[in-house]
């Protein structure tokens, strides 16, 4: 596989974590413009763990997910009773605050005679764990997709379970769900934390792929794109967001056909698509139709 294809596939894989993070919240009925902040939390946490304290990647990633989930929970606790647009604005404010805090974060340690660590707006260089352990781009690509497969499988299993149905019920009609006795608030808090952890997982992998992160990487545009991918790909299945990412990063960008005009094309596609399919390409209707026919159930 040539370097270019590896690069495109890596970008798709990493972006998919963020898109899945937005997707999970959308299914539960919440629109978040702030998932990129948890992507950043994951990136910085994992980077600090491996580059400054020599932790192995797995442990660093676990720590990243824990912190991402916790941060998301804190935001959720303050904001979850807000409706639609207000919740979205609160997540935007929280994400921008996080980004500014990253710009103020200066914490360095001497490792092997070199100062390593986040250096405010200059960024965090030297996250070399993957590099130093002899992993090449192709190997890391396999790792990304391995982790992604586990995550997507887990989500697909969850969707077929009672919890998944409850989640969708909460998202599509919260009043109805509350009427049948579902604890909306607790479910949503759980989803918010899970979404934060998923984003942080992606961030941890991103930091190690890039060997360098800076606060500017985690700006609003990243989150907005992830949201768009989830919505275009479809809210009916966890494969939807992946489709969305693949369409933009893979097809539109990867093919280089629309060099310089890609956002105009993608934006137009999204806006027009939403008129006919407000829940995306792989929405609940089509997924139900496909699975019913394919699995011969019901």
């Amino acid at each position: 596989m040539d370097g270019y294809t590896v690069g495109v596939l890596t970008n798709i894989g990493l972006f998919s974590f963020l898109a899945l993070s937005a997707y999970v919240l959308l299914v539960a009925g919440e629109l978040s413009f702030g998932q990129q902040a948890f992507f950043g939390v994951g990136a910085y946490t994992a980077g600090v763990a491996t580059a400054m304290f020599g932790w192995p990647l797995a442990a660093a990633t676990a720590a990243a997910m824990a912190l991402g989930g916790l941060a998301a929970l804190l935001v959720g606790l303050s904001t979850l009773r807000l409706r639609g647009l207000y919740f979205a604005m609160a997540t935007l404010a929280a994400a921008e605050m996080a980004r500014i805090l990253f710009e103020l974060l200066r914490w360095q340690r001497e490792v092997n005679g070199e100062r390593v660590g986040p250096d405010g707006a200059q960024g965090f260089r030297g996250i070399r764990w993957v590099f130093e352990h002899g992993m090449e781009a192709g190997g890391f690509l396999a790792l990304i997709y391995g982790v992604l497969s586990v995550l997507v499988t887990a989500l697909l299993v969850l969707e077929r379970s009672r919890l998944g149905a409850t989640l969708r019920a909460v998202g599509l009609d919260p009043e109805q769900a509350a009427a049948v006795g579902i604890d909306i608030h607790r479910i949503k808090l759980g989803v918010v934390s899970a979404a934060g952890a998923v984003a942080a997982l992606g961030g941890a992998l991103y930091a190690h792929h890039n060997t360098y992160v800076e606060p500017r990487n985690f700006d609003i545009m990243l989150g907005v794109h992830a949201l768009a991918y989830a919505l275009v790909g479809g809210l009916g299945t966890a494969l939807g967001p992946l489709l969305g990412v693949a369409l933009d990063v893979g097809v539109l960008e990867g093919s280089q056909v629309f060099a310089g005009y890609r956002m105009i094309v993608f934006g137009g596609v999204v806006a027009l698509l939403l008129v006919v399919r407000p829940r995306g390409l792989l929405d609940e209707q089509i997924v139900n139709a496909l699975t019913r026919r394919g699995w011969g159930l019901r």
Partner: protein
Amino acid sequence: MLADLAQNTLDGLGAGASYAVLALGFTLVFGVLRLANLAYGPAIMLGAYAATWVSLHAPVPLLALAAITVAGSVAAGAYVERVCFAPHRRARAGSGPAGAAAMAAMVASFAVWMQLEEAATLALPRHLYAFPPLTTGPPLSLGPLALRMETPIGLGVAAAVCAALWWMLYRARFGLAVRAVIERPAAAGLSGIDVSRVSAAAFAVASSVGGVGGFLVAATHGQVTPHLGMWTTLKGMLAMMIGGLGSLPGAVAGGMVLGVLESHSQWYLGPQARDLTAYLLLFALLAWRSRGLARRG
């Protein structure tokens, strides 16, 4: 010490005037028209970019540049309205602000946001372009304080726009039609109001207010950047929320408060603290509001 406080407040009021006009526009869109339009700021940016483009090619008077900014914002706004909000209008009529059609419209608006940003950077690719300043010449000396002439001009414009909007919404027939369309769309249609014409016209009014705000921002800063879309969105929404969503005088007050708050926090704590304070305020306001909802629900 006291002089610093006074000077910062004065400067803050100057910046606040631009924020106030932006907030008025956002209040119209989000509060009155009840549209979650994320392409509003980018449409303003496009207007400012159109004026910038013209100013780069010909020496045009400032007032003409203002007109071009407004025209550009209105044109971009019409595109947004057609693509993002008109198609979903009928579906949206039934459900509340978090309804599926409303969400689809909101998402479509940020798709168009991305389009407008790319279009702007294709036309004018550099990071920064100079914009003719609102006033040339030294600031007025009021004792130990310096009054930049942008401040009274901006305040005057904000007051004028607020008054005009208030009259239009609450005294003129058009405003009655707008409010009817928003609150009782089915009844409005039945009583002979051309819903789509009124919606488009209201949107155009909101876009032109945005254009005025955008011109003020560009002329007081003396420059435009591709980030203007996001910047105006954040400042406008923040000021609108501070003033209480839906109130026109509140929007002006919110703009002033934001301007003064930013000015002081930047002076004492630096630019990052300035932004941090603004977001913290927005977050706190929303969280407090959410607690209010919790108590009731």
